Every structure is written in C-alpha cells, then in structure tokens.
C-alpha cells in the first residue's frame, strides 16, 4: 500500500539543514495563540489545523468569525484566499503519477498540499523513482502536517506567555523561509522570470484589487514566463 523506504525518505525532509519544521512551528504556534485569544477550544484549534491546514485561510476564518461574518461569506473568502492550491496541485500531481498507484491515494494526499510541502517536493522529486514519488510526497506531507498540528497545540497552550514582540517576531519566520525556498527554486531563466514578475506585481495589484491580486499577478507572471522563448523546464 505504501513504499516504506520512500515514505521515510519524504518524512526525513523534516530534519537537517533544509528543514521546514522551524518555519512551520513559528507560524502555527502564533496561530494556536490567535485561536486561544479568539475563544476557540483546544480541540477546535487542533481540528482546524488538521482539516484545513492552510495558514492564510485559517487566519481569514478567525477574522471572519470575530467579525460575525455569515457562513457563506466565510466560505467564499476562504475559497478565494486558498484558490492558489488549485494551480499548485496541477503543477505537482502529474509528476507523481504512476499506473501502479491507486487513485484514492492522490485524492487523500492532496490534503497535504501547502506552500512548504509543495516547495520541498518540487525541489526533490526528480531524485525519487517515478513509481514511489507519491509515497515520498505522503512522507513529506504527513511530516509537515504533523508539525503544523503539534505547533498549533503548543501555541495554544503557551499563548499566555507569548508577548506582543514575540508574536511579531514569529510572523517574520515564515516569509523568510518561503522567500529563501523561492530563491532556491530559481534554477532556470523562465522560472526566475515567473518568480520576479510575481514579486513585483503581487504588492502592486494589492493596492487596487486586494482579493484577486495574488492570482492575477501569478497568472500574468506565469503566462509571461511560459510564452518566453526557450525550453519549458518542468521544475
């Protein structure tokens, strides 16, 4: 059902000098503390990280709850903010396909998709035998998801000890980690162009169309890179 060696190889991405664990811990500890302050129970906080596992969406959910937004409004704002998972999944899953893997594994393991797991997988999947890439992905995903859930639990429990300056400092760790990973991903000119255009247009569009800025900036940056002359690299 699962190739243990590849699974463990994926799980091992949590340790070593390229580990995402600290970045995940920083942001989900902060999230746990935010949940506590918002009046969520410990079980609810854990359930949110376990079943949603998408930081911006969980923050939108908390804000909307505090503002007393309707369920349909919460649904729409979360869907919009997490819609980036759609192109990210399409840009990943074809690389994991193998006829020996059952379909249900793809439908369950797509839940592990998040920025960190996606960047780790994109960085390392070529080293893995095609037949077992899905198991490697499940290893990465179960490791990153568990880190997120445990950190939410920890953050919830220690929230009284986290002062304002610490909450601010926790919030910088994730963007730094993501940015370093993105720079590491600039291995060819077309991907670099896509990333650079995204970096420039994201904040620019935010000034005029905040809700759609990320998706539109990405659409333009990605299409520009795609249309450029040269070989399309599949990293």
């Amino acid at each position: 059902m699962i190739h243990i060696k590849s699974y463990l190889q994926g799980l091992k991405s949590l340790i070593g000098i390229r580990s995402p664990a600290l970045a995940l811990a920083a942001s989900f500890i902060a999230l746990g503390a935010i949940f506590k302050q918002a009046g969520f129970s410990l079980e609810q906080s854990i359930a949110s990280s376990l079943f949603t596992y998408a930081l911006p969406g969980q923050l939108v959910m908390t804000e909307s709850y505090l503002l007393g937004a309707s369920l349909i409004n919460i649904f729409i704002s979360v869907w919009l903010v997490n819609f980036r998972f759609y192109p990210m999944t399409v840009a990943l899953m074809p690389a994991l396909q193998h006829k020996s893997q059952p379909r249900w594994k793809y439908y369950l393991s797509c839940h592990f998709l998040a920025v960190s797991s996606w960047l780790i997988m994109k960085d390392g999947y070529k080293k893995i035998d095609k037949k077992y890439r899905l198991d490697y992905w499940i290893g990465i995903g179960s490791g990153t998801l568990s880190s997120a859930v445990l950190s939410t639990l920890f953050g919830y429990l220690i929230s009284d000890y986290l002062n304002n300056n610490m909450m601010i400092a926790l919030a910088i760790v994730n963007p730094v980690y993501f940015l370093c990973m993105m720079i590491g991903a600039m291995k060819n000119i077309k991907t670099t162009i896509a990333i650079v255009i995204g970096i420039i247009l994201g904040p620019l569009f935010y000034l005029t169309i905040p809700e759609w800025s990320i998706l539109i900036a990405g659409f333009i940056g990605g299409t520009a890179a795609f249309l450029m002359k040269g070989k399309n690299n599949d990293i």
Partner: protein
Amino acid sequence: MTSSSIVLIILITSVATYISRVLGVLTSERLSIKSKIFSWFNYVAYSILAALISRMIIFPAGALLESTLLIRFIVIAVCVVVFIYTKKNLVLPTVLSFVLFTFLVSVQ
C-alpha cells in the same frame, strides 16, 4: 456565537480549502508532465507563490503590521545573504530571522 457554530465554521473552511486541492487532482488525472498545459500551470504556480510572499512582506496582515517596512527589508536581506552564503541552509536564516527581528523591533 456558540461552540457548534465554531465547529461549523471550521468544517466550512476545511471544505472550501480542500475543493481547490481536489479540483487540482481531477485536472491532473489526464495531464502529462510533458504537456504545455502542465508547463503553464508550473510557471503560474511559482509566480502566484512569489506574489503571495512579496505581498506578505510589503503589505502584511496581523502582527507584522507593527514592524516597519525598513526593518522587514533589513531582516530579509540579511537572511537571504546567509541562505546563499551557507549554500542553501534554511534552518540558519529562519532562526536568525527570529532573533534579528526581535532585536530590531524592540529597539525601533
């Protein structure tokens, strides 16, 4: 709001998030890694993430709002240099970002 409505909100958030992931798997089913569509999605995904990260740093939400843009830029520049200099060590820049940022925010 009652406890049951929080549970409902968590459920709705989880469904709204999972939809995009599962639609991605559905689209991927007949998509070859060698196809042009895959390639386009690949660049779009990278560009979306870059836009998101850049927006998080320049126009942050939540706690980061209490820091100045200059401090965020200094911390990020130092961490990126460390990342490149240490041949892509990720643990060091993440730890450093926390320490340096705490220091700069406390003296600002």
